């Protein structure tokens, strides 16, 4: 005999049965039956945020750091709509999220009732799937299905909209939590096609100028070690997308940096001149390819992705492989091992030596070290902030970021040792993501060092969560690259609008962040001279302040730009290298 429970109790019980540790949320009328059920138990800890957007980012940060789904609970109407930005953020970066939203009672749906929003409708374009509960008896199976969908195949957010009457404490139904779910309409790919894998293996061993281009799918699929083994076997250069950083160790000699709009010179040049691109868990995003018509003219393309829609969406693949990154990389590595057995080196190896020589030349000419020119007057460059952070944390921190110049600098200059260490909003580019995401990471790993690299613009989009940090004792270290402006906007205005800084500066009205964070019960420093940078960073990460939120407000050169930067409309080799030099050559445009 199964137990009989109310919808609200079933919902919370199902979360317990899924092993959910934290529920990030904010109460309101339509969700109150559920909140009452939460009150009566201890297994699932509810985290009270200060804004629903932050709840979704916290759950997202938790999910990205652990690989487990993040779970959110919000009320109807504004609670639900406030969650949308976070849901869209998770959707664009394919993170597993379960968002439970309260809804007005079934009888009031469609009547423009108080705090009514068609959540299933509003969220439709930014969810993997969604459900509207019609009867409390549906709750256990729906929750099981939602977790199954969110976490398998290409992960993504799933919304469950729960009308208040279906959680009524007086209406009960039998509770049976399904062991597993089979859906006739949903069968995510697992293993790659054998024939395609063999074709890919052959192409890889024969390539003369190969490059491995790996993305967020490798991080999500926990396939970093498998990728690293394969890359070492081939000896090929590896570039990571913004979302893929860490999947291949940032300090490995075969790593040539991030690629794309603000990728390294050597990574973008190597992509453009490659004869074989092995793309895995990456989606040829416009921020990577630049102009698709001019994309890597000599390259054959192997494209591995768990989502068939990503393949040949932007760039047509020569060898498409639909499959899970881990499974495909392991099978491919085994094939390579067999293929190479008995050979002292792979057929393309001789040519590859020249290829590496070329890549090193590119790196020596215009690598990141060349791009940054430290100033002699003590003004801090934003890149130096990241270098100092890397040094102070010995490369071992979980780093979240917001969106803008500081995000690009962090991606360029922090060398991540493994996947799930670098957490940022790559696809949607959501300002305000960094702090709550860092909090989600800290909940997952209370002992870990968690740094949020932010800018003063992004930080002010979700700074109310400083209060939540105090409530739950989350000792996030916030490194604010303060350039007194919306730096990336300003950079584009410098480069494309003759320096007309339309609505991108506000230096007269910035708060004193030190006093601001102190008002929230935290510790703040402000520094503006290179001679203080390392000391401040060391103090922020010192044992003395281990249990405190520390906000390091670093005033940097407001005129610094992020370089390299892709030249719009060009190929991957077309870049601005600094304020006066471009890489343009030959047949550009």
């Amino acid at each position: 005999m199964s137990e009989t429970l109310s919808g609200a109790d079933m919902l919370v019980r199902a979360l317990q049965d899924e092993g959910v540790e934290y529920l990030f949320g904010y109460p309101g009328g339509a969700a109150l039956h559920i909140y009452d059920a939460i009150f009566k138990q201890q297994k699932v800890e509810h985290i009270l945020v200060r804004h629903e957007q932050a709840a979704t980012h916290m759950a997202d940060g938790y999910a990205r750091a652990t690989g487990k789904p993040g779970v959110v609970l919000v009320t109807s109407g504004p609670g639900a709509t406030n969650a949308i930005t976070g849901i869209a953020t998770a959707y664009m970066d394919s993170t597993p999220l379960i968002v439970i939203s309260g809804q007005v009672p079934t009888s009031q749906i469609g009547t423009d009732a108080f705090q009514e929003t068609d959540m299933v409708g509003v969220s439709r374009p930014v969810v993997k799937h969604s459900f509207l509960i019609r009867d409390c008896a549906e709750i256990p199976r729906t929750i099981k299905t939602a977790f199954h969908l969110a976490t398998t195949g290409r992960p993504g957010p799933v919304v469950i909209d729960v009308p208040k009457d279906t959680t009524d404490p007086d209406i009960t139904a039998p509770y049976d939590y399904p062991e597993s779910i089979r859906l006739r309409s949903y069968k995510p790919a697992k293993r790659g096609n054998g024939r395609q894998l063999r074709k890919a293996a052959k192409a890889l061993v024969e390539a003369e100028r190969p490059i491995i281009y790996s993305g967020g799918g490798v991080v999500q699929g926990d396939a970093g070690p498998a990728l690293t083994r394969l890359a070492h076997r081939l000896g090929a250069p590896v570039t990571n997308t913004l979302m893929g950083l860490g999947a291949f160790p940032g300090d490995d000699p075969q790593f040539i940096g991030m690629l794309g709009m603000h990728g390294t010179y050597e990574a973008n040049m190597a992509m453009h001149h490659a004869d074989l691109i092995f793309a895995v868990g990456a989606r040829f995003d416009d921020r990577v390819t630049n102009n698709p018509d001019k994309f890597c003219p000599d390259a054959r393309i192997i494209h591995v992705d768990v989502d068939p829609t990503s393949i040949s969406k932007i760039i047509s693949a020569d060898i498409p492989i639909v499959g899970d990154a881990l499974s495909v990389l392991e099978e491919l590595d085994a094939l390579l091992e067999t293929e190479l057995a008995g050979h002292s080196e792979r057929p393309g190896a001789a040519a590859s030596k020249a290829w590496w020589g070329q890549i090193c030349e590119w790196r020596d000419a215009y690598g990141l070290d060349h791009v940054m020119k430290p100033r002699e007057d003590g003004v801090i460059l934003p890149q130096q902030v990241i270098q100092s952070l890397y040094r102070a944390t010995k490369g071992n921190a979980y780093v979240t970021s917001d969106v803008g110049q500081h995000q690009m600098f962090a991606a360029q200059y922090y060398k991540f040792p493994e996947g799930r260490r670098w957490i940022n909003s790559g696809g949607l580019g959501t300002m305000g993501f960094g702090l709550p995401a860092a909090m989600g990471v800290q909940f997952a790993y209370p002992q870990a060092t968690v740094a949020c690299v932010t800018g003063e613009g992004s930080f002010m989009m979700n700074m109310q969560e400083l209060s939540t940090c105090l409530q739950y004792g989350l000792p996030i270290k916030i490194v604010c690259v303060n350039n007194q402006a919306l730096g990336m906007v300003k950079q584009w205005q410098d480069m494309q609008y003759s320096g007309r800084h339309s609505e991108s500066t506000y230096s007269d009205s910035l708060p004193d962040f030190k006093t601001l964070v102190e008002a929230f019960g935290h510790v703040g420093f402000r520094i503006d001279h290179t001679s203080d940078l390392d000391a401040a960073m060391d103090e922020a990460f010192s044992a003395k302040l281990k249990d405190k939120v520390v906000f390091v407000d670093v005033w940097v050169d407001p005129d610094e730009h992020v370089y390299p930067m892709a030249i719009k409309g060009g190929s991957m080799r077309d870049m601005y290298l600094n304020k006066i030099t471009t890489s343009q050559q030959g047949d550009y445009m």
Partner: protein
Amino acid sequence: MSRRVLAVLLENEPGALSRVVGLFAQRNYNIETLTVAPTEDATLSRVTLSTDGSDEKIEQITKHLNRLVDVVKVLDLHEAACVERELMFVKINAQGPDRAEVKRTCDIFRGQIVDVTATAYTVQLTGESRKLDAFIRALDRSAIIEVVRSGVSGISRGEKVLSA
């Protein structure tokens, strides 16, 4: 660019159709016609939609449809031989000497007059979309009072089936 007809088996759930339609809007794909009804299995609906685009675009549409959790199967009916039909009603001004002409045109196209008033005929016509277009062209435009078309429905010829 070519016109294509896709048959989609869909879970017969609330909101399922809106996901299909939403996908087309969201990805900037065009829907020319759309028909939907439950199948003999009440848990499944069958959608037939016609769209246009290059082979690459149709492939993307098919893949995106398949990605929707409610979509059980997708078939591009034009991949092999198929039967396509569309139903149309046309209300036509039929007065004086034109009345007989309307009747004759209707007979040529094997239409049926399903409603008659002193001044108008309502004609029912089934066939491939081209045939319905031709019928409209054959009529005096000023005589057409109202047109309603069902959109295309289709099924593969031979042994090929679309089933869950």
